[in-house]
């Protein structure tokens, strides 16, 4: 009993450290890739190819003065970044990055993931409110409304995947796609893939849906008043959320760790990692290309385009599954 508990704690620690390390790498990769897309080099000074830049960023954040507003609600102000980071990190418990490699594989793993991911919205809401500033309140309310609207579309798109695989467990969904490259769900659930992709962009508040933290319009949105490591926690939480969504897209739509039969010498973990990297690359590519959507158009896109599209997708999938499976 005690050994299993210790074993679980060790695994959890290793996972947490690995994800935080991945965050640090993603920070650097994002800045370099964004620079290359914009016809410039990213960070080049700090190490060869800028590899020591995350260390410099972390040191900078740690040494900054921790400012708390006078009118801010002290407890919630300190709690909000923790919620944002913690929920994003805990969702990694149910993500399998190889066959049998999930830290825990419940029968309703997908539901658990969506539920924990939705809790992260509290971090944004409470953070913006606790700062007691106009800009942060506006930013956080916008962010909350955006995120909960796109959660609905995301959930409905995911039901299509569940119907195709016949199970809510993520491992089974990936195994149901193991039919070469044409068995992957992005082909069979094309509208659902589009909906999920757009909803993932909106969930992580990335361009073109990044009005919550639009630097030119709301100063910093909900994280204006956060300084130093608190802002670091929000920022890291956002990156972990991005990794979450990329992993979900890979697992649900791009076949997870399955490869073509002639590539089966590559270990499944590596395939999964490469696919997640590709999805993150596409996210950054979109960030650097598309302009930001205006907020009312963003909301109408979520409610009037994505949700009906997901419903149509669900209808089609249900008919197909009822008739042919």
């Amino acid at each position: 009993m005690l050994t299993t508990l210790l074993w679980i704690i060790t695994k959890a620690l290793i996972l947490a450290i690995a994800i935080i390390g991945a965050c640090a790498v993603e920070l650097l990769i994002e800045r370099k890739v964004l620079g290359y897309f914009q016809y410039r080099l990213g960070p080049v000074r700090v190490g060869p190819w800028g590899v020591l830049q995350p260390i410099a960023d972390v040191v900078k954040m740690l040494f900054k003065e921790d400012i708390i507003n006078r009118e801010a609600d002290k407890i919630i102000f300190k709690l909000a970044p923790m919620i944002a980071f913690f929920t994003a990190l805990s969702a990694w418990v149910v993500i399998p990055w190889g066959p049998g490699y999930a830290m825990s594989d419940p029968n309703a793993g997908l539901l658990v993931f969506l539920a924990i991911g939705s809790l992260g919205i509290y971090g944004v809401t409470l953070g913006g409110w606790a700062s007691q500033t106009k800009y942060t309140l506006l930013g956080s309310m916008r962010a909350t409304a955006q995120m909960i609207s796109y959660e609905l579309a995301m959930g409905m798109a995911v039901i299509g995947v569940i119907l195709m695989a016949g199970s809510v467990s993520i491992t089974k969904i990936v195994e149901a796609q193991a039919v070469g490259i044409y068995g992957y769900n992005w082909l069979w659930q094309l509208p659902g893939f589009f909906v999920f992709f757009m909803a993932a962009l909106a969930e992580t508040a990335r361009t073109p849906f990044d009005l919550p933290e639009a630097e030119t319009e709301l100063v910093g949105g909900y994280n204006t008043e956060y300084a130093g490591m608190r802002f670091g926690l929000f920022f890291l939480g956002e990156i972990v959320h991005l990794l979450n969504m990329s992993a979900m897209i890979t697992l649900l739509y791009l076949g997870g760790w399955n490869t073509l039969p002639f590539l089966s010498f590559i270990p499944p973990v590596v395939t999964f990692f490469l696919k997640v990297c590709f999805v993150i690359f596409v996210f950054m590519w979109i960030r650097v290309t598309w302009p930001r959507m205006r907020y009312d158009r963003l909301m109408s896109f979520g409610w009037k385009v994505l949700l009906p599209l997901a419903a149509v997708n669900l209808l089609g999938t249900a008919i197909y599954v009822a008739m042919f499976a």
Partner: protein
Amino acid sequence: MFEGIAGVAKGLGTTLKVFFRKKNTITYPAHKKQRSARYHGRHELRTYENGLEMCVGCELCQVACPANVITVLAAENDPNNPHSPGERYGYKYQVDLLRCIFCGMCEDACPTDCLHLTQDFELATWTREESILQKDRLVNRKPSGFKVPMNVYPPFEGRKVVKA
């Protein structure tokens, strides 16, 4: 709707193309961009091939400067130890780089082509006094390719004494 999608895809293609292009960022200070040939940088006073200074202390650069940057004081050449191939030379030559606007009018005004604006643009200093260049920092002893024009300066033989 399809032209919208086509436009979006075209935008994505453009950024992807740029991703693989060679970047034109110049990693200063490892590499420095070449300035143009007539670039207005720091001032220098050139010298002739035989070591004499080209500056004859005419103070035309001081007059031409729109910002009153240059201070020249002329003195008479000692015939045994001339500084310049003429009767006078500039014994104090001071350029205040903090006030200079690098317009190049002093370079245009110099009648002997002595004053030259080089391509040196890295002029940051730790104190203000270091930015006010005196003659020792300004004279460039490297061979400049200029020979003493003998038709302008006849051989100098000393001051003629006018018999009263």
